[in-house]
């Protein structure tokens, strides 16, 4: 039930973010979701894309430092307290969230939250037992 995310090191200087999206776009890679974490000197761009291996290769040959990480995609009902119920479950199960970001599904009925856990296997187990709906990689890449 894990989804692969690629992250890219970006120095804090003009045009680097644009360069990443240009390189990917020109090779026909489509971005499904993204999040940018930044400090004063550098940023980390995290992407879910439709073609992970291709994206990683293209960025590497473009001179970027790229890593792959396992994340978990959780479907959240688009209503008040939808996210809370999930976070509360994680909290009770003592699962740490390193970071998270969200996007909406095309039909608008649900939101999808991408979670980065320190222990993704334990998190997947817990979420599954609690009956929380997760999306597998293929579902997210082809969204």
């Amino acid at each position, binding site marked *: 039930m894990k989804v692969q995310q690629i992250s890219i090191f970006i120095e804090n200087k003009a045009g680097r973010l644009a360069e990443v999206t240009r390189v990917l776009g020109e090779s026909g890679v489509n971005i499904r979701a993204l999040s940018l974490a930044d400090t004063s000197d550098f940023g980390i761009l995290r992407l879910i894309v439709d073609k992970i291996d291709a994206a990683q290769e293209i960025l590497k040959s473009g*001179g970027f430092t790229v890593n792959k990480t396992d994340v978990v995609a959780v479907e959240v009902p688009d209503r008040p307290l939808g996210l809370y119920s999930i976070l509360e479950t994680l909290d009770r199960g003592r699962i740490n969230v390193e970071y998270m970001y969200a996007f909406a599904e095309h039909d608008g009925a649900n939101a999808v939250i991408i979670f980065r856990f320190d222990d993704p296997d334990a998190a997947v187990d817990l979420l599954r037992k609690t009956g929380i709906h997760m999306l597998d990689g293929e579902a997210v890449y082809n969204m």
Partner: protein
Amino acid sequence: MIWNDEFETLPREAIESLQAKRLRQVVERVNATVPFYRESFEKAGISPFQINTLDDLKRLPFTLKQDMRDNYPYGLFSVPLEQIVRIHASSGTTGKPTVVGYTRRDIEMWAELMARCFGAAGVHQGDIIQNAYGYGLFTGGLGAHYGAERLGASVIPMSGGQTKKQLMLLQDFGSTVLTCTPSYCLFLAEAAREEGIDIVNLPLRVGIHGAEPWSEQMRGEIEEKLGIKAIDIYGLSEILGPGVGIECIEAQHGLHLWEDHFIPEIINPDTGEVLPHGEKGELVITTITKEGIPLIRYRTRDITRIIPEPCICGRTHVRLERMSGRSDDMMIIRGVNVFPSQIESVLFKIEGVEPHYQLVVNREDNLDTLEVQVEVNEVTFSDEIKELQSLSRRIQKDIKEILGVSCQVKLVEPKTIARSEGKAKRVIDLRDQA
């Protein structure tokens, strides 16, 4: 292999008596032929006839790089120009280059010493030497070349740069020995990896690296990435060029300095006082056989010490510890002496950190600042900010602990720091412009 068995293993007393004899000759010669020396001896109140033993050497005045500049271009030559068969010059990044001239015998002697160096590095006839030191005014290319021919090895005069072609020759010509700067060697390894070339499994066996300071950790990196033995060689154009000294492959510890041609001294760079064997200071060299431009007590600005213990290889010539830097490379940051090589050692000890770094020194509000730029690679990169920040802090802390100087660490993208094809530019000092 010991190339010149007779001279490389001379007993200590024989070396010293030869040195004393040659010292007397050279002092008399420069006094008679080089006005600069005649005046400088006079000023010091020394007559050449007072120089009889090795112990008298310390009575003579030093020769500085500035003296070479002041006597530009031919003022320190000891023979008429008709007897000079080759002229080399330093790069001269600041002002005029320093010029050196060689007589036919000097060229012969240089080839002999360079052949000894190749022998000490385990190179022999039958080896294919890819010489990637620059050919031209710089002494590296031609110096190594003549030594390789003297040895009887096959030399490829590749010169520096043209990385793709270097890699092609390494594969197609089956080069077994590579001579280049250490930073270029790592640059080649990186380029090979990008081209998908398995450089470790090529016939390449030995690398001979010099012309810039490098660390023991960098040696480890070169040996691992290229699958070779990496040997440190020492030389400077004022004294000869490459071949003044070299490590032997047996010990890989300390550079044997050819004492039948040079007399080394270690001095306190501030007072000029000669230090006892084993103490660290500035290396001073007197050339005792050179004809074109003999130098008396030349201050190399290289910081090292003499290793007093005899070497396992059987050579009797003294060993100099790996140069910890040139006193010119030394930065003074808020009163603390810092050599780039010390920072390099700290970086190498951190898992995954690569030797691509640059130091930017600046002055803000009358306070020196040091920024250490380190490239992020796949090993050190993490998708979590806190991991990268802890890497920065770790580097900062280690530098502070080991060198006693605070710095800012800036993580930069791969290939941000210019790769050198010659000597690596490690320090950018913006203080003079501020």
